[in-house]
């Protein structure tokens, strides 16, 4: 056997066999950071992560008449409304791009982000039976919601490219940065979701704040309008909202606009990383008390 050590100890065997040798885990009061940021712990429970993500994907559209179509109907619906209201009636600038494309390229990552936030922030409470009865790294619960959203965004990306190509626009090589931009959206969604779901365990106020905050963010983020309407230095500063970089990046990457919004993407990427680590760190600190509160 292996010697135990404070916190989560013990060996793990790489490429583990079906009957791993027993290992000793010491359970004791912990302080500071212990679990979430321990890759070994996450790896040990990888099957749970997969099953929870698979569950979230499966359940999302089961017994809905339109099924996966919902993943694309939401951004397409917003696109139509935005094009009529902001594009035609209000005459909002779209940096010279066809307004429907301009808004759809932004709505695809936005829908992923807002859905993840909405469902993820309530996820720990919704799964309280699991949290109070069984141990596994709890981060899998909000992370599962975010992962399930990746299926949605994959589908809506396909629709986006179909619409873009049908419009006669051919994306440039910049399209290769789409995975990076999606990763930024995932990082910010995961960080925020982790923190919000953890706070929600203690304070159910989160339930009321989140839908409201998402609506505010929709207007703060340049989705219906281009960020070029904002003067510097405020434009760059606004990219502290990570979705600013993601949204403007998406337009550049998929609509062949030419000028890369590098400053916006850079600031937003840094911000997304900060949000990710701060969110996970907070989650890690409070995780041990979930079962006592939920």
């Amino acid at each position, binding site marked *: 056997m292996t010697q135990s050590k404070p916190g989560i100890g013990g060996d793990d065997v790489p490429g583990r066999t*079906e009957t791993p040798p027993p290992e000793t885990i*010491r359970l004791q009061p912990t302080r500071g950071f212990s679990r979430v940021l321990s890759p070994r712990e996450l790896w040990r429970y990888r099957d749970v992560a997969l*099953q929870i993500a698979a569950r979230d994907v499966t359940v999302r559209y089961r017994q809905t008449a339109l099924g996966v179509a919902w993943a694309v109907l939401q951004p397409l619906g917003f696109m139509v409304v935005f094009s009529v209201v902001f594009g035609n009636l209000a005459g909002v600038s779209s940096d010279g791009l066809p307004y429907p494309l301009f808004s759809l390229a932004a709505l695809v990552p936005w829908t992923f982000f807002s859905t993840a936030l909405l469902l993820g922030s309530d996820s720990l409470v919704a799964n309280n039976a699991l949290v109070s009865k069984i141990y596994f790294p709890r981060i899998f619960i909000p992370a599962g919601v975010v992962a399930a959203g990746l299926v949605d965004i994959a589908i809506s990306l396909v629709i986006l490219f179909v619409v873009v190509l049908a419009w006669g626009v051919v994306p440039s090589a910049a399209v290769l940065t789409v995975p990076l931009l999606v990763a930024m959206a995932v990082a910010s969604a995961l960080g925020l979701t982790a923190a919000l779901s953890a706070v929600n365990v203690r304070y159910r106020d989160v339930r009321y704040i989140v839908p409201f905050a998402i609506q505010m963010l929709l207007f703060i983020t340049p989705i219906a309008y281009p960020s070029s309407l904002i003067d510097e230095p405020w434009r760059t500063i606004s990219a502290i909202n990570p979705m600013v970089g993601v949204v403007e990046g998406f337009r550049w990457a998929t609509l062949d606009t030419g000028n890369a919004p590098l400053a916006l993407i850079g600031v937003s990427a840094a911000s997304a990383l900060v949000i990710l680590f701060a969110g996970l760190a907070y989650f890690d600190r409070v995780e041990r008390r979930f079962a006592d509160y939920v």
Partner: protein
Amino acid sequence: MADLAISTNGLGKQYTLGLHRRGYGTLRESIAQAARRSVRRAGGREPAVAVDKLWALRDLSMTVRPGEVVGLIGHNGAGKTTLLKILARITEPSAGYADVTGRVGSLLEVGTGFHPELTGRENIFLNGAILGMRRAEIARRFDEIVDFAEIGRFLDTPVKRYSSGMSVRLAFAVAAHLEPEILLVDEVLAVGDASFQRKSLGKMGEVAEEGRTVIFVSHNLAIIQALCDRGVLLERGEAVADAPVREAIDRYLRTLERAASDDLLERTDRDSRGYDDTLIRRVQIRDPTGGSPDVIVGGRPAVIEVHITEIVPMLECRLTVANSLGQPVTTLDSEVRATEDVRDNGMGPVIECHIPELPLLPGRYRLDVLLMGKRQIQDGLQAAAFFDVEPGVMADRPMPASGSDGDVVLAHTWRLPS
């Protein structure tokens, strides 16, 4: 191989009182509280509020060797479930530590993690993973699990369309096919119909014989006695006995009787769901035609009196008669009406249950009482009273003095060829 499966040292868990019933607050309350505290501090006084803390488990040091089957015994709130939750890593201890060697599987509640929208098949994989099985392992034992659960053709039906019996069977089947080195079991055998219960019990026996370490919690002392080698008796969060299972059970039964003879209002192990608008004060069984209380001759009339503190609207009472090992013999429930039931507004705060001929074999029995009112559970006490049944006559037939199987005696007549 490690020489110990579990070793705890000074293990303790402290809860802040009120946490359980109201698990969460609102942000506003916390902000207000923090504000009050800082105002007080600014005023130069120390915070005067002493937060009520409760040690649900205190200073527990015990060791379990691999292959041992240990039963945890004790009243409600004695710390049994808290200990299991710590060992299962659901909650962290507040003091001391526990070293656990080997993979832990916990059956703290069967069916946890079932998702109603998923099919039986999908739920087997989800639940298996959550309980700590590897995917390949679940796939290998898949057919066995389906067979055991007896769900056959409903395998691809969403679990929400299952009867409650089916989903419980499926849940238990998944859990029973876990192959952890250490298995934690909390009161899961009371599921399904009688034949499934027997099957589950057999399965648990197998698990115990396979050399796995099992920590077992149940109120059914007969099951504990059948499955466990060793019993640990917990009282108010502390281990007061750690002995061969028979001895630990005896000791527990003695503490139960002591508690029953005292003023019941002093008991702290009450049903946690109770609203406490009215409480069980005293429970007594007597023969209305005379004789000493708490001793009844079998086949004679008996009255069970539940004295309560307060008369509240819509009073109901449920009595469970259990034998000396805690196995329920029968339940008497006032919510199930009969035409001869009486509701009398001239009565004092006492509920009476009349039994015309007590059909119990000689022996010692206990009464568990659940009190309801205002459509809520008000109070509940296990082992609220004990009574002895002496050999008597049932329908003109003398009862065997002792040594017969079972707990009940039925009025009956025979017809035999001669």
